């Protein structure tokens, strides 16, 4: 018996499409980024400045451009992406504690639930003939959101942060963390028009409830396995709804975001950031095969 129900037909169409069936999108697909089609609007996160680039806060200076990568390895050649040839590579500098961030900048047209899904993997640079599993500190995601301009009093800029703390100071941690502590907002330049804050510093992170998780690092530095990530966030209530990595969905009751008073030029902002952080004087890589951002109508 064939169903004529619209929801069943939609689900059937999604599941029959190899580009989509690996995702569970909400009804409106806002973007489906497959890096075999190019950079898809993912770019380098640039710090704010005024008058001179020297006014950029120090944490932003390490950030590099995301690049299209075949995951090429010195010992075994190109690994390739999960699907096709290219993944988006987010690379840190070879400097302990350096962070690198790729960003996609959007706005929203309805303050409702959004779902960010992506397939990714991570690895330190294979400079040593060693497992090197303690050399990558973390990978993570940030949404950067702000209410619309008619929100009224109490409107906020809200920045949910999640990271997988793999290792720090030579010790494996392998757990998910979030950040709600607001960083110091600094004036940039002398015109009173620009402010900045470095929200990805290695401070203020808190453990997610029952957030320990061992991922598939594999057995040498040049073998990688793709992982599934999903983060659901409601822009209307500005609350996290769900976070999932592979087979684990985490309790978000104790989760909160960095919250700031709404800023004068960020209305309806919907930015997505993905980042990597190194624990050694060695590059750390986050490779992203594909991203699906979806929402309600």
């Amino acid at each position, binding site marked *: 018996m064939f169903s004529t129900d619209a929801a069943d037909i939609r689900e059937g169409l999604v599941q029959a499409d190899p580009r989509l069936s690996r995702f569970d999108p909400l009804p409106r697909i806002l973007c489906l980024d497959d890096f075999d089609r*190019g*950079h898809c609007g993912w770019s*380098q996160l640039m710090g704010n400045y005024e008058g001179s*680039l*020297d006014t*950029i806060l120090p944490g932003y*200076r390490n950030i*590099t*451009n995301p*690049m*299209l*990568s*075949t995951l*090429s*390895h*010195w010992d075994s050649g*190109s690994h390739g992406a999960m699907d096709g*040839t*290219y993944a988006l*590579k987010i*690379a840190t*500098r070879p400097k302990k504690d350096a962070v690198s961030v790729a960003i996609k900048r959007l706005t929203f047209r309805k303050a409702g639930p959004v779902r960010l899904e992506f397939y990714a993997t991570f690895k330190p*640079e*294979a*400079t040593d003939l060693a497992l090197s599993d303690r050399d990558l500190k973390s990978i993570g995601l940030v949404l950067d959101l702000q209410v619309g301009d008619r929100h009224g009093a109490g409107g906020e800029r809200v920045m949910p942060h999640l990271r997988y703390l793999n290792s720090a100071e030579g010790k494996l941690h392998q757990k998910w963390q979030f950040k709600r502590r607001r960083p110091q907002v600094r004036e940039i330049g002398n015109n009173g028009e620009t402010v900045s804050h470095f929200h990805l510093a290695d401070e203020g992170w808190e453990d997610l409830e029952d957030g320990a998780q061992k991922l598939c690092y594999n057995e040498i530095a040049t073998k990688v396995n793709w992982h599934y990530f999903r983060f659901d966030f409601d822009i209307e209530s500005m609350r996290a709804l769900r976070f999932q990595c592979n087979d684990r969905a985490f309790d978000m009751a104790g989760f909160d975001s960095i919250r700031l008073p709404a800023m004068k030029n960020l209305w309806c902002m919907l930015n997505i950031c993905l980042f990597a952080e190194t624990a050694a004087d060695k590059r750390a890589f986050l490779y992203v095969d594909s991203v699906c951002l979806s929402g309600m109508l």
Partner: protein
Amino acid sequence: MLRESVTYVINRQETWKGQCATEPVEAGWATEAIFFVRGMEEAGGDLPQIRAQVSPDGMRWVDEGAAIPIPQKRDAIEFLRVRHFGNWLRLKADLPEGATCSLLVSVHLK
């Protein structure tokens, strides 16, 4: 399919002294690259050439052959073209004692 084209800014806000290089550029998808090197302030000392390098793995580097002067004046621009570079590219300069420069380096790939 429209041809892919991208600009990366691969050096900014760094003062170069001694052995210096940009971060690696992975661009196996591209067939041509042009680097622009802009002086951000007056460079000092005995300035060497800045050289294109290629690599089999993004870790071990050899000179490609193309080279340009380091721009000495603020806002002076030099450029360098490279083709058939495989998967990896970067720029390298070995500044002698007393030489220093601050450069904005971009690479444009397609």
